[in-house]
């Protein structure tokens, strides 16, 4: 069983977000890390591998990322958690790619890897579009089981629960397939000390666009269908309003507030 888990290297969400003059994210000035939502994808991949145990033959989890040199940190984190090897697609021409172009590069990289299951997070914590898993399944011509909050594998059948606002649906797909998992799928593990030490020795390959046979003109800012036109700093947090309940009027004040903000 070969699992490819696609992860993204993103700016630390707890830091200040900055943008370049072309409105792409400034990756130089901030600390980057493995997107928190992708940690769930890594976790589910590892759990599937563990559940298969020795019955699944030699199961292997490969971490795949696209990004600048620093993106290897995201791979490293996934390897520390327990993934087996990494592939880093690194090419200056990719910078500024939108979801469409990103999914092209990911798909071509996945095609070069043995894959029974391709696992993604539900969205990135920076771009937050959440469309790459669906695009990836389309480009690979594989069934896409997206937004799974609980994941089961029964032989060659993948079964997920997808929680919607009004209903919960169960989706089944036959392998090979593309899966995306939500932040409800189960807390991601912390790398153990041994995992941290072992990751140092795990193999990471670096591929260029040429290695994938992708033309540079198909990707990057120029080739992207979507463009960020404007960015704005988040307004500073305001003080908020504290409702005090000294004479029994608190509940009404709270409801009035919620109504005034159209929450209820």
């Amino acid at each position, binding site marked *: 069983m070969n699992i490819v888990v696609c992860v993204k290297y993103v700016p630390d969400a707890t830091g200040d977000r900055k943008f370049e003059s072309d409105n792409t994210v400034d990756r130089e000035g901030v600390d980057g890390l493995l997107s928190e939502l992708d940690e769930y994808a890594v976790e589910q991949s590892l759990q599937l591998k563990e559940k298969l145990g020795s019955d699944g033959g030699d199961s292997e989890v490969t971490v795949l990322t696209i990004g600048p040199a620093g993106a290897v940190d995201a791979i490293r984190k996934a390897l520390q958690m327990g993934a087996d090897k990494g592939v880093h697609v690194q090419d200056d021409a990719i910078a500024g790619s939108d979801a469409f172009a990103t999914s092209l590069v990911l798909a071509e990289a996945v095609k070069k890897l043995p894959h029974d299951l391709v696992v993604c997070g539900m969205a990135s914590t920076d771009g937050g579009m959440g469309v790459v898993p669906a695009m990836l399944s389309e480009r690979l011509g594989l069934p896409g089981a997206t937004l799974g909050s609980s994941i089961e594998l029964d032989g060659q059948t993948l079964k997920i629960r997808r929680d919607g606002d009004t209903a919960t649906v169960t989706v089944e797909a036959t392998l090979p397939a593309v899966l995306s998992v939500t932040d409800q799928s189960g807390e991601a593990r*912390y790398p153990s*000390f*041994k995992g*941290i030490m072992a990751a*140092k020795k795990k193999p990471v390959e670096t591929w260029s666009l040429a290695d994938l046979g992708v033309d540079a003109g198909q990707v990057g800012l120029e080739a992207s269908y979507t463009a960020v036109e404007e960015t704005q700093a988040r307004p500073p947090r305001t003080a908020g309003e504290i409702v005090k309940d000294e004479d029994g009027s608190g509940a009404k004040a709270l409801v009035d507030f919620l109504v005034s903000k159209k929450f209820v």
Partner: protein
Amino acid sequence: MTQIPFVESPERQSLRQEVRKLASSYGREYFVRQARNGEKTTELWQDIAKHGYLGVSIPEEYGGGGGGIGDLAAVLEELAAAGSPLLMMVVSPAICGTVITRFGTDEQKRRWLPGIADGSFTMAFAITEPDAGSNSHRITTTARRDADGWVLKGRKIYISGVDEAQAVLVVARTEDAKTGSLKPCLFVVPTDAAGFEYQPIEMEILSPEKQFSVFIDDVHLPADALVGDEDAGLLQLFAGLNPERIMASAFATGMARLALEQAVEYAKTRQVFKTPIGAHQAIAHPLAESHVEVELARLMTQKAAALYDAGEDMAAGEAANMAKFASADAVCKAADRAVQTLGGNGLTVEYGVASLLTASRLSRIAPVSREMILNFVSSFSLGLPKSY
């Protein structure tokens, strides 16, 4: 000597990040709540153990991570920086784990190390005595042989966490050591042994771990309760005391980072005149100075750990003492400056900075006082004559 770099490895830095993240999910509130309610931080202890962070320095063949004291110190520092230090790490894995690893028999290692590594077995450490505070040459707890093994008698004071330990590593002397020269020998004493009693000492320190007076009244021990060589002397003891100093330094620098972080956060947002108070140099400079002091102390702590892990015991001892000295002073100043930055809020329960005042003060006293370190540096490093 092997080359020792000035910056920690990427793996050490990853370890710090992960521990910090895990500890932050508990946070300072957890530590304070448990301490005030007279409860332990067992959940955090087990959580840290589960990920292999507690046993990082124990050899892999005994269930540990196969790392060094530098790794263990990094874990403790990050816990302290996140507001939830685990004091028993200083004694159980650092002192006891190290001493047993280095001097225990295979059987002793198999019996105790896996439990110390996975957190299921906690071993306290007892050296200080009422009449031999800083003078460990005056230790009077004695061990005499009997037919089956040993009989231990004596009294210990300021022993951490005896109530949460299954055994205590007790520093004693053999009875025939009439010369008065220190020939420490180390015994593992189960806390439920007949004749072993302990009483809590009320402290003005907010801590889930308590301090105890220990009374050892003719406790019978099997022959293999003795760890290491009866005559190995100071070597064995210092194998445990140097990691203790390194861990105490890590505890202190972590706590100093916590104090500074709270002060800086407050100084950035608190506004009395036109700008946040952090813009005023009277507030900013003391905090900046503390940051420098803490970074210097951390560097010395890392140096001491690197030397220790490289097997350079003598050099590690000198560096560990200096690191402990610098860390203690750094955390005391940081806590004091944090309180001053917060003004009246600095002394409230709500802001939680005041409790760092007494907690940080402990660093200047234990496990060795700053005066004894200066004595050591005077004679050992500078070659000045001794007064004692």
